[in-house]
């Protein structure tokens, strides 16, 4: 059952100035990894080593966590972020470890949960309450349940969220009211490292399945395991993949992205992967980093991978590509902060970074980061041209047009369900093919197109049928791709490249070279054992780069393989797309210029009403502490059923937005919601359906003051813009 989310985004005027024009290549407007402005305080709570018994788990576990939070809580409530570590020995005595729980006398619990203090500090300074929870009790026995502890970890996360619900409502608990009214449990983000990654995915699923009611808005599995092939749709997702991971050596966590892409029709939640070259598994946790804790772990790459130290990229030879532990942590801070600020706090500035349209920020300390981006399944946010899910995708596109493979050396599907081969790179070990790595639960991997060429005239062409020729409202053409390093036609160490050609109905063509806009076609580094790996990253080409073609009448899309004499690549997820969100309030607000008469509110006292006239019509009533709106707009023909528009208003608080009801053409779209401020006099009430598709009305009001009693009865005149009264002097609520 869909419901209006009763939240509103408040976006400052300065943010409007940063609104990305469709198709533009943007530098990131802000560096998400820079420390925030707030002073940070620290606390812990410990309710006992056996305080919680997860269902289906063989023993009770601890309720222990650290808390980083803004020292001054008066501006709260603040969103809550929960961090969950992975599998490590639970107990230590000096540098010796013991695998049991609770720790026997003389042994100390290992504080794996403190290994993300650096993240907690950074995120709290931006206005988050960051809770990092201990899971030693689960680690002691997590391999005993069939799911290897995923459900128990998810239950543990939800138990902590329940505690915080109690502590934000009452003065009970260890903080005795310190956080009462200061925690926004409708704005929750989860990060899990390693097995914790699978745990936070399980938590988000349990939250939905069991109707726990927490507003989990973002889930970030970091170097995660995915033993159970859990599928998490409808929640924004970012999977961080360390290329030199020697523990989860097959980067199986990429399945979370792959499996969720098309799992739920209409899924509004964007998905991301963040591939960090040179990063290993353990250095994201300081307690697991050698030298930073007595019972730490090793460098998993050199410890687990046979001859790993000799690898030119992941090893320890001079000139290698490895990141230091501090550099690794910097990548987590930069991209973790961007992800949570984007989706938990609706900060649209970081959308280009997460989509790969902006380079890694300086704070990440490395340029060698590649991302994938899956846009929301909304008609105005993504139009799939080919999902490559079954053999029909070789001949017919997702939009129904025919496909032509001309002079290609290889052209077939791989990696998905039979009869396609389970692995795309024949003879290459599975740990070098993450998208098709096996899991405990047997499932097919990512279905991909394997395409190779070696002669002149090689091309791959999609015909666009009449229903799919208008693409001007999308920002980019995008696809995921990786170079097939097992094919000798790809020169070792060199990137691949080809041209994309769009042709319109008048026969005009425009070509763009992929390498001009993306580095995703790099030759994957490494030569020893588990590397090189094939990881698909998203290529995004601005449609604005295709000069001279009519984007309202495209007829064909071609890949022309004329930049290298030969090559072989893996492809999937070919689409036109825009950057958006599940309810992209901030994004919509940022796309609408402020309007109206600054400082002149249309409503000043509770009970006063205003009207909206124009393409958007409706009314507003001032309430104590806000304004209630009821708007209506005809459904544009381009809008499909289920599209969720956003209403944007310029108020005394800035530009505010709230979500409309899903469109049900031909019925008008209804938008009901609240703003904190009063709309400015003669400001615009704009309903944003998607990039470049809006409808606008004008806010009129309040009605003129009552005239002196007439001598004869008369109908009251409807106020017009021309006879609006002068603004009252009183401040807006």
């Amino acid at each position, binding site marked *: 059952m869909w419901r209006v989310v009763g939240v509103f985004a408040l976006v400052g005027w300065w943010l409007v100035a940063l609104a990305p024009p469709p198709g533009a290549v943007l530098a990131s407007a802000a560096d998400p990894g820079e420390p925030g402005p707030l002073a940070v305080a620290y606390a812990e709570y410990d309710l006992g080593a056996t305080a919680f018994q997860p269902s289906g788990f063989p023993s009770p576990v601890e309720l222990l966590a650290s808390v980083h939070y803004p020292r001054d809580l008066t501006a709260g409530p603040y969103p809550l972020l929960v961090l969950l570590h992975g599998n490590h020995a639970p107990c230590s005595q000096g540098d010796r470890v013991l*695998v049991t729980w609770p720790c026997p006398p003389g042994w100390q619990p290992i504080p794996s949960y403190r290994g993300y203090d650096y993240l907690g500090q950074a995120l709290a300074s931006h206005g988050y309450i960051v809770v990092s929870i201990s899971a030693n009790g689960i680690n002691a026995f997590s391999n005993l349940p069939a799911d290897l502890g995923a459900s128990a970890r998810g239950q543990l996360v939800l138990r902590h969220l329940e505690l915080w619900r109690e502590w934000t409502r009452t003065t009970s608990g260890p903080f005795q009211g310190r956080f009462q009214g200061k925690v926004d449990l409708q704005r929750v983000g989860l990060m899990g490292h390693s097995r914790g990654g699978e745990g936070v995915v399980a938590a988000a699923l349990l939250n939905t399945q069991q109707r726990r009611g927490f507003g989990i808005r973002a889930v970030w599995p970091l170097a995660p395991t995915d033993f159970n092939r859990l599928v998490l749709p409808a929640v924004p997702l970012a999977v961080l993949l360390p290329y030199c991971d020697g*523990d989860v050596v097959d980067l199986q966590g990429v399945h979370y992205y792959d499996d969720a892409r098309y799992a739920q029709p209409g899924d509004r939640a964007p998905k991301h992967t963040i591939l960090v070259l040179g990063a290993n598994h353990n250095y994201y946790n300081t307690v697991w980093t050698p030298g930073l804790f007595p019972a730490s772990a090793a460098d998993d790459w050199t410890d687990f991978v046979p001859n790993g130290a000799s690898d030119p990229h992941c090893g320890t030879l001079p000139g290698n590509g490895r990141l230091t532990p501090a550099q690794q942590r910097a990548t987590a801070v930069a991209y973790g902060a961007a992800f949570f600020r984007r989706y938990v706090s609706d900060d649209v500035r970081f959308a280009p970074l997460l989509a790969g349209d902006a380079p890694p920020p300086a704070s990440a300390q490395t340029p060698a980061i590649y991302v994938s981006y899956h846009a929301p399944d909304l008609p105005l946010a993504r139009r799939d041209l080919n999902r490559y899910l079954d053999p029909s995708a070789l001949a017919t596109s997702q939009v129904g047009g025919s496909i032509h493979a001309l002079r290609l050396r290889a052209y077939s599907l791989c990696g998905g369900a039979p009869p396609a081969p389970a692995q795309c790179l024949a003879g290459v070990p599975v740990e070098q093919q993450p998208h098709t790595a096996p899991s405990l639960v047997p499932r097919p991997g990512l279905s991909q197109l394997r395409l190779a060429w070696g002669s002149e005239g090689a091309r791959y062409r999609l015909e666009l049928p009449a229903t799919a020729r208008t693409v001007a409202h999308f920002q980019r053409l995008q696809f995921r791709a990786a170079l097939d390093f097992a094919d000798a036609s790809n020169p070792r160490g060199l990137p691949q490249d080809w041209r994309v050609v769009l042709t319109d109905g008048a026969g005009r063509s425009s070509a763009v070279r992929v390498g001009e806009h993306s580095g995703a076609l790099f030759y994957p580094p490494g030569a020893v054992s588990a590397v090189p790996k094939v990881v698909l990253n998203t290529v995004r080409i601005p449609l604005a780069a295709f000069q001279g073609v009519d984007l309202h009448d495209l007829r064909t899309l071609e890949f022309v393989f004329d930049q290298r004499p030969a090559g072989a690549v893996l492809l999937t997820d070919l689409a036109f797309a825009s950057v958006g969100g599940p309810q992209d309030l901030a994004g919509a607000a940022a796309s609408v210029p402020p309007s109206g008469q600054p400082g002149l509110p249309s409503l000043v006292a509770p009970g006063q009403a205003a009207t909206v006239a124009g393409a958007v019509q409706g009314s507003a009533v001032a309430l104590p502490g806000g304004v209630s709106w009821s708007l209506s707009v005809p459904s544009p023909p381009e809008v499909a059923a289920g599209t969720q528009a956003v209403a944007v208003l310029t108020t005394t608080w800035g530009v505010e937005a709230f979500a409309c009801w899903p469109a049900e053409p031909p019925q008008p779209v209804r938008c009901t919601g609240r703003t904190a401020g009063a709309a400015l006099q003669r400001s615009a009430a704009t309903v944003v359906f998607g990039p470049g598709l809006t409808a606008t009305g004008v806010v009129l009001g309040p009605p003129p003051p009552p005239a002196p009693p007439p001598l004869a009865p008369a109908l009251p005149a409807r106020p017009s813009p021309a006879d609006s009264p002068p603004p009252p002097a009183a401040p807006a609520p």
Partner: protein
Amino acid sequence: MRASLRRTPPGRRPFCLALALALALGMLGPPLSAGQEPSVLDLYTVPGRIVARSARVPAPGQAPAPLEYVVEEVAVPPGVDVQPLGGPAGATVAWRLTVYGGPFRVGAQPWVVWIGDRPFAQTYLSPDGTALVVLLFDRALLTSGATVSVSYGLAPAAPPQRLPDPLLLPGA
């Protein structure tokens, strides 16, 4: 991730292996004491009846050589639900395959015991990391003559370690 167990100098191995056995057996836990609620964890600790063992496993009380195995039949204590371990409701008996060796270190992946080409990832790691224990609720899974091997994860970077002796069960 995984934690490093400190390497043992070769000269101290006999002592340490004896200690390891004591830990592996002793820290797997004593039999239930009176009044203690039975737990599914007890299945890894209660004494069992030895059904088979590899040739070089010494008698109880002596140190096992690395990568040896013991198979025991274990009675499921009344009231213990083995379903969290993947067992059937109402199971009264289990077969316990213990592989000695290691140290098996703690990390993201499970240690997987393979019987032939069949993997078993639900492994109990002894507190000191020197024994992996798999509980089976179907004796037919113990294929006599099959090789036994151990790997870190299902898709390990390093090849699985194969035990010297195959699984040999009486009456097979």
